[in-house]
């Protein structure tokens, strides 16, 4: 149990030495840019320093720092995409704007094909590249939400609080994001290369 004395001794150098590497790699993995990742880690530590009183010792120091880092990454995502949600609000669960994926009788227009072994696929560099490209192609607000949910592993409550959307909205948007990925990857991923390898 950390006592009051321990929480008072804030030592940023110790933070960098013990957690810097993990924080930096985490930022790099999500931003793919060294300068941005460095800024992000730096901003995280500044924020941690300012709010060190809010660290209650219930979670580990790393978990606490990672939590701050996630928010810094989201800020960068936001700036990158200049997100506006205006066109993405849905109040009716069935009006989810997915008409172009299904025909009138509710069948797939472009039925999802068998892409092969999911485990192998996820490891393939070429597949990852198609995935990244497709993520960039979809509406920015959907990509941001998908990244928050799947990359940063935020739960629905965190997503709604951070992005200021409702639960219903977030579910519909995630559904649309997944349909976009399905359609885009199916069009751009060369299945024939998959069979050969």
């Amino acid at each position, binding site marked *: 149990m950390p006592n009051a004395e321990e929480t008072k001794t804030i030592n940023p150098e110790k933070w960098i030495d013990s957690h810097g590497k993990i924080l930096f790699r985490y930022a790099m993995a999500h931003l793919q840019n060294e300068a941005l990742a460095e800024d992000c880690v730096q901003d995280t530590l500044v924020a941690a320093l300012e709010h060190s009183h809010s660290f209650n010792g219930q979670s580990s120091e790393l978990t606490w720092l990672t939590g701050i880092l996630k928010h810094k990454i989201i800020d960068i995502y936001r700036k990158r995409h200049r997100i506006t949600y205006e066109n993405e609000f849905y109040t009716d669960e069935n009006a989810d704007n997915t008409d172009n994926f299904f025909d009138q009788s509710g069948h797939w227009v472009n039925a999802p094909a068998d*892409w092969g072994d*999911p485990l192998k696929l996820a490891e393939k560099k070429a597949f990852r590249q198609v995935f990244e490209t497709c993520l960039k192609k979809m509406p920015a607000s959907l990509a941001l939400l998908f990244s928050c949910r799947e990359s940063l*592993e935020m739960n629905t409550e965190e997503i709604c609080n951070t992005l200021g959307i409702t639960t219903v909205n977030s579910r519909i948007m995630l559904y649309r994001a*997944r349909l976009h990925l399905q359609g885009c990857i199916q069009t751009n991923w060369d299945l024939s290369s998959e069979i050969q390898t």
Partner: protein
Amino acid sequence: MINCHSASRLISKSREYPLPLLKRFSLFIHLKACDACHNFLRHVEIFSRVAKNPEDSNQDIDEAMKMRILNHLRHHQNTPPDHL
């Protein structure tokens, strides 16, 4: 029986919260008969897996970067916040 549009919606929702029993059952029945939706279910799992494990960069914080960050932090520590 539910159609593919409804089934795919349930597949996506099932990633967010446990579906009610009846919906889970109707999805199960649909998946038994529909390869396309079965593939979509697998793909949604792949999307999640790929997004969760971005390629590991081998880059690390070097001494220069550490010093830059530390200097910035020290400067910040010694500067009283603006609003005070």
